[in-house]
């Protein structure tokens, strides 16, 4: 039915099967869209946020998708600037994941603000001293970069590429892609960092505040580093999921091993910095403000030391170690465990830096504030996931996303799904 659009030589499932799959995920998407419109038209009272929880579930989702979307800029940086050529086999996919993550992040921000129609004030009336301004500028610009990086892949669609103009455009864009990638890396460095800075500069919140370098608190650098470290984990994870669903091998092992190895070293170095930061914060920063570490992890029903240990050891040290040791890295199961732990770890870090900050009491007579999101928040947080699945399904079906697909699947029988 749609065979004319499918990349030449690639096997895809039948159109009805594809349509049914899209429809199922589409239903979830519509649920999210419904919740989104509720928030826009009825206001943020649709959420369970309150004056203690000014940042809540979807801001965590926002930070988490940006962190895991960091795979796009880091892979792009390695491919185009450091000329790690093997990565060309996964760069398209990394860019698509990044595009999904960043468009989701922008959408979440548009839902999150109380007066969406005034959203442009952040640009027009920018306060350059605010980390959030930096986030908004770099995020939007970087989204433009991702769009630019995504366009050539779209133009390589079989039918689109027949149009001479688009064919040339794709070719020319590939030619100057290194410049775009460098700009993207520059912008990513600042917005990933400023997202960390958002928490680190809150000197009224001892749980969040960090000292730092010039105007940048240490969380600035930790966030950039962690996004570069864990982003590739997410790219690998989604590639693995795509391979499982399609029942095909799409990326050669040497590419996966290389990216896993880079990610492993990044995670390991990040987690060392994170541990140093945590120790310094726990022993120097907070005691000077009159706090003990136990203040942040006891006397409440949810946040215990477990969250610190899970984030740093289980989801930081462990995946880092698993990915830098050759034997465990090349073991598919252990590698999968490592990348799953890594993705959880970075998401947990963002959770702590958004939600736990809000929960911790600061005034001595204040109490812990815990928070349960409303269904509207959950629906709008799942919305990007459904959107991402649909976009990946469509791009996989119609675009030559994986350059090695044909080579890897030339003799295999047709055991494809979506």
């Amino acid at each position, binding site marked *: 039915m749609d065979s004319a659009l499918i990349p030449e030589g690639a096997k895809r499932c039948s159109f009805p099967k594809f349509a049914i799959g899209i429809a199922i995920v589409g239903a979830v998407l519509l649920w999210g869209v419904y919740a989104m419109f509720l928030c826009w038209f009825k206001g943020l009272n649709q959420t369970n946020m309150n004056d203690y929880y000014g940042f809540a579930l979807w801001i965590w989702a926002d930070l988490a998708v940006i962190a895991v979307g960091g795979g796009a800029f880091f892979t792009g940086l390695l491919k185009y600037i450091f000329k790690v050529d093997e990565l060309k086999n996964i760069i398209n996919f990394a860019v698509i994941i990044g595009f999904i993550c960043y468009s989701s992040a922008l959408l979440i921000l548009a839902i999150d603000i109380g007066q969406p129609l005034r959203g442009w004030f952040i640009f027009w009336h920018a306060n350059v001293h605010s980390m959030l301004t930096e986030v908004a500028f770099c995020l939007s610009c970087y989204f433009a970069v991702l769009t630019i990086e995504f366009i050539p892949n779209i133009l390589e669609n079989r039918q689109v590429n027949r149009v001479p103009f688009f064919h040339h455009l794709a*070719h020319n864009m*590939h030619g100057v892609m290194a410049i775009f990638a460098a700009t993207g890396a520059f912008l990513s460095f600042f917005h990933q960092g400023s997202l960390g800075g958002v928490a680190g500069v809150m000197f009224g919140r001892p749980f969040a505040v960090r000292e730092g370098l010039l105007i940048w608190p240490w969380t600035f650098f930790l966030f950039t580093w962690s996004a570069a470290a864990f982003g590739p984990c997410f790219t690998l994870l989604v590639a693995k999921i795509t391979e499982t669903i399609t029942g095909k091998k799409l990326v050669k092992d040497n590419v996966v091993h290389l990216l896993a190895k880079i990610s492993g070293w990044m995670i390991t170095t990040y987690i060392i910095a994170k541990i140093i930061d945590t120790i310094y914060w726990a022993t120097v920063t907070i005691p000077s403000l009159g706090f003990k570490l136990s203040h942040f992890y006891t006397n409440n029903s949810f946040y215990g030391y477990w969250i610190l240990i899970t984030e740093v050891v289980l989801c930081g040290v462990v995946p880092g170690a698993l990915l830098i040791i050759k034997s465990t890295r090349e073991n598919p199961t252990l590698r999968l465990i490592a990348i799953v732990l890594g993705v959880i770890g970075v998401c947990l870090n963002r959770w702590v830096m958004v939600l736990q900050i809000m929960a911790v009491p600061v005034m001595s007579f204040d109490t812990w504030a815990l928070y349960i999101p409303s269904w509207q928040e959950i629906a709008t947080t799942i919305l990007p996931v459904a959107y991402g699945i649909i976009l990946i399904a469509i791009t996989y079906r119609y675009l030559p996303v994986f350059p090695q697909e044909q080579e890897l699947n030339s003799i295999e029988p047709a055991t494809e799904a979506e």
Partner: protein
Amino acid sequence: MSEIENKTENGSTESAGERTAGDTKDDKGLGLGVIFFIVAFVVCFLSGTLLFPKLLYSKREQPFNFDHKLHVGEAGDCDSCHYLREDGSFVGIPKLATCLDCHSEEPMGETEDEAIFAEEYVSKEKEVPWFIYSRQPDCVFFSHAAHTQSGGMDCVTCHGPIGESTSSKPYQENRITGYSRDIWGENIWGFKKNSWDRMKMDDCAECHKQETGHQGYCFQCHK
């Protein structure tokens, strides 16, 4: 990247022949495109400058015409009617009671407007529902005392030579914001020639910066 390059190179050699036919067609398309662009630009430009203001603003007449020039001649300066109260607040457009200081007995002139005033408002003891050209949004704080008393400014600087007008212009309200057109100014581009052409925040800030060295903290002009 290399793959694409290969494709292009192959493509260019393979299809060079069939492209020649299309070339002339492309040129023709280009010419049409340029004409289309120019026409569209002119249409957009004209509708933007001529039609858009008409769509954006609704027009309403004042309840009846007010002759400022005549009143200035009879009653004196602006502050005969638009004065500061003892507590420092500004009366704005005078209430009926102030008008009755002079207009109490029989008509003072023979104009149609005064007849309306006497019939519709004075005899019925109803306030005149004037439209206020210079009404600022609700969030704005403006102190007349600070500007006229402390700053020593005259009314004309912001309000223009309204004291010399003999008739009231129609009141134009922005349909989206509900603000008077005098806030943005008559010029749809936002250009101004006189200090009284616009009453936007930037205009306040410009003068404040010049006169006080600082454009002001938020609360100075917002409430």
